[in-house]
């Protein structure tokens, strides 16, 4: 019994010694090669590059080989159809206000406007308005003399304008309500039909647009309509200032 135990112990010691020996030999060989490599590196850099890059490149070859396929991905790709995004760049509205027709008094004016918002800064505007001119001071004082017939007193115009939003911002009403708003400059060309004649006209002005909702806008607008006319026999510029209040919808 004793001899068996002794044999077992001895074989275990021998195994440990042998394995230890092998480990120690491998370690010794590795460190000696590293030491020789470093010593050769010190002597010649090109040689060290050759010796040290050898095992590294071998390792790279091993990692670049494709890994075994474990799971074949079976992913169904989602196909998404993006719905068309509705845009509301058009604005249609009506306005009402007062126009001072030069020499013919201040009269009510009404009109329609159609805007196309090109960018956040610029917009095109087409507008059509009409008013009826009053009487000149001469007609009022002379007693019965009429310079124009009733049909000729109709004042109608259209304008094609370009607008620029200069001061975009928010308008606060009370403490809780804030509405987006913008001050804009506008100018354009058009024509005026008045006193039995139609003339080329230039319009320019400024306005204030306030939006209680994204689709509704309130406009306060002041513009001057200028045209050359010979109503009083000689050609001269006629300035017609108008101030209007309008309501429009975006679509």
């Amino acid at each position: 019994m004793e001899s068996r135990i002794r044999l077992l112990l001895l074989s275990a010691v021998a195994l440990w010694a042998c394995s230890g020996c092998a480990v120690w030999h491998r370690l010794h060989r590795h460190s000696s090669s590293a030491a020789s490599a470093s010593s050769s590196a010190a002597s010649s850099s090109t040689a060290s590059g050759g010796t040290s890059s050898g095992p590294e490149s071998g390792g790279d070859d091993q990692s670049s080989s494709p890994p075994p396929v474990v799971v074949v991905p079976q992913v169904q790709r989602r196909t998404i159809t993006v719905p068309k995004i509705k845009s509301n760049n058009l604005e249609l509205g009506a306005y009402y206000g007062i126009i001072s027709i030069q020499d013919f008094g201040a009269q009510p004016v009404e009109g329609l406007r159609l805007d196309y918002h090109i960018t956040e800064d610029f917009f095109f505007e087409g507008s059509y308005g009409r008013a009826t001119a009053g009487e000149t001071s001469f007609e009022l004082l002379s007693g019965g003399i009429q310079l124009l017939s009733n049909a000729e007193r109709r004042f109608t115009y259209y304008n094609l304008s370009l607008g620029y939003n200069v001061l975009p911002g928010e308008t606060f009403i009370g403490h809780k309500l804030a509405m987006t708003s913008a001050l804009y400059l506008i100018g354009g060309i058009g024509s005026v039909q008045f006193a039995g004649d139609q003339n080329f006209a230039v319009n320019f002005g400024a306005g204030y647009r306030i939006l209680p909702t994204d689709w509704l806008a309130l406009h306060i607008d002041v513009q001057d309509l200028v045209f050359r006319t010979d109503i009083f026999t000689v050609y001269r510029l006629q300035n017609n200032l108008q101030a209007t209040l309008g309501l429009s919808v975006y679509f």
Partner: protein
Amino acid sequence: MAVPYLELHTGPGRGYPVAQVVGRGESVDVLYRHTDWFKVRTERGIEGWASAQDLSRTLLADGSRFTVNLGDRAGFRSHTWEGGVFAGAYAGATLISAYAALSVTDNLKIEADASQYLGNISNGYLFDIGLAHVFMPEWRVSPFVTLGTGIELVEPKATLAQPINRSDQLGYAGIGLRCYLTRRFFLRGEFRSNEIFTRTNTNEVDKEWRVGFAFFY
């Protein structure tokens, strides 16, 4: 949201204040568009306006980019529709004009115009339809020629003895330039020679030039 954050403005413009921010990984629903701004609703139900530039850096649900066509040089070369307004002169009178065109190819367009001229002797309207050929649509400044027909409605001024409104058919030929500005916009200028087929023995030739602002879609 693939960017660190998306700013939501209170209105469709850079001048309106930023009121909300959407973080990375969150999603938004696009509701509608006004010019280059998009009204969006966040997961928390908050609504605001995001610029097309910012939104184009976000991803759709399938991982692809959100793309917005804001108009570019490629669009100037090939597009379907264009339109614009002009100011100019027609036989000494002031001209106001608007046009729309449909592209058959990048070079060939079918155009329709409506114009009004206002002069000292007479006023009138012109309605034309014709073809335009753009020679180098890929150039920033590209020349073109036009050829077409139309009608002229003349309203002589009341100062003449017997003003009679009349309408005549006309044919025109013209040359012009298109100059790309930015985004969807370009300038267009042209000269036309209008041959008016009057009821008298001789035809009338009226020269017309006009410059204006146009955009394409």
